């Protein structure tokens, strides 16, 4: 009660590595929500008791006013902590789309809540539409060219077998440990996903 668990939730996210995503803390979130409803029922009880007294609200004792104030502030606090937690995680969920593309690996996906997974899908759709060639799209893939280009091609080593791929309009089989010069924009997502590694020239 009184914002303690809520602070715990925020602290957990604050300490987390900005590049990593923790497992969604369903348990703690629902405890904070439960507490919030408890605070609210305290308020309702006081309000309904006071309204039944002959003097009504005007004559309410300061001790009741102070209690309502404390519960009210506690609800606001819980709300802020919950939303900040949700918002920070939503930012990370969106970052996943930029880093990994439209499909999340299972070991990442399982860390998200159901709402977050849907949020990822919705964001993927929105971003895809914006970058796409439809009427609302600019027709430019913004997830590549993340660094200033030095050469149209970069040298890469294959880390794991990803089968045959269409690269630069040619079918290439990426055999582990082999090296290739690949168009930057085509190599970028494969590097981010850990299929290729970029070799320094």
């Amino acid at each position, binding site marked *: 009660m009184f914002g303690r668990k809520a602070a715990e939730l925020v602290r957990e996210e604050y300490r987390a590595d900005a590049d990593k995503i923790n497992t969604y803390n369903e348990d703690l979130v629902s405890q904070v929500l439960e507490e919030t409803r408890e605070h609210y029922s305290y308020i309702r009880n006081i309000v309904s008791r006071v309204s039944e007294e002959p003097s009504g609200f005007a004559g309410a004792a300061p001790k009741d*006013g102070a*209690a309502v104030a404390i519960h009210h502030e506690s609800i606001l606090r819980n709300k802020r902590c919950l939303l900040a937690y949700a918002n920070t995680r939503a930012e990370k969920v969106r970052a996943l789309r930029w880093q990994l593309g439209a499909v999340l690996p299972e070991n990442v996906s399982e860390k998200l809540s159901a709402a977050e997974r849907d949020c990822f899908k919705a964001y993927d759709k929105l971003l895809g539409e914006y970058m796409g060639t439809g009427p609302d799209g600019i027709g430019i893939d913004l997830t590549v060219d993340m660094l200033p280009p030095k050469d149209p091609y970069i040298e890469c080593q294959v880390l794991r077998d990803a089968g045959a791929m269409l690269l630069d309009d040619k079918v290439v089989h990426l055999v582990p440990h082999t090296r290739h010069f690949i168009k930057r924009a085509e190599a*970028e997502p494969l590097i981010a996903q850990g299929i290729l590694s970029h070799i320094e020239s």
Partner: protein
Amino acid sequence: MGASAIGADYFDLEAILAEEERVPVLFLTSVTGVGRALDPSCDDDDLAEGVKVDLPQWLTKGQLSEKRFVEVRTPKCFNERVKKDIQADPGVVNLRERSAFFYAFGRSLCRILDNNAELADFLLITFRGRYKDLLLQSHFAPDEDVQALKRIMTREEIRIFEAGRQSMQSFTQWRQRKDSIYNMAPILGKKRKR
């Protein structure tokens, strides 16, 4: 931090945690039903008038102080002794131990304590001293000193200090031609070693 934009830092984790810092208050009224929760020595449902407790700052800054249910006192980390210590030698005081969010905490206290100009001045003087004695070492402090320096800094100081260190590191990385290299997505774990 800024008083001007209402709610601008609503989602900011650091701003939220700064408000966890505790403030001593004197209750000017009794309070229904929160006795045991707010005062460990209390054996009654209601909190009694005249009780002194420490409350987190977020709880004191709203109606509780506005409607004079409580009187807010100055927390220990801003008392005269601390002030003297800081004025004597700002660079050696362990501020983090006093409060991990010394400045943000202090600034919002200023508002609760009727725009306490003296406290505001003290915060500025403190930062000035710490900037000169600690933060300016940001770009060139040797790694072995950094841990010791950071141990006595508040979160806010560390952020500024690390900003300088980060840019030196990015610069070094650039000179070694390592920042035009594409990496695996950080979320997938393994990162290229420096």
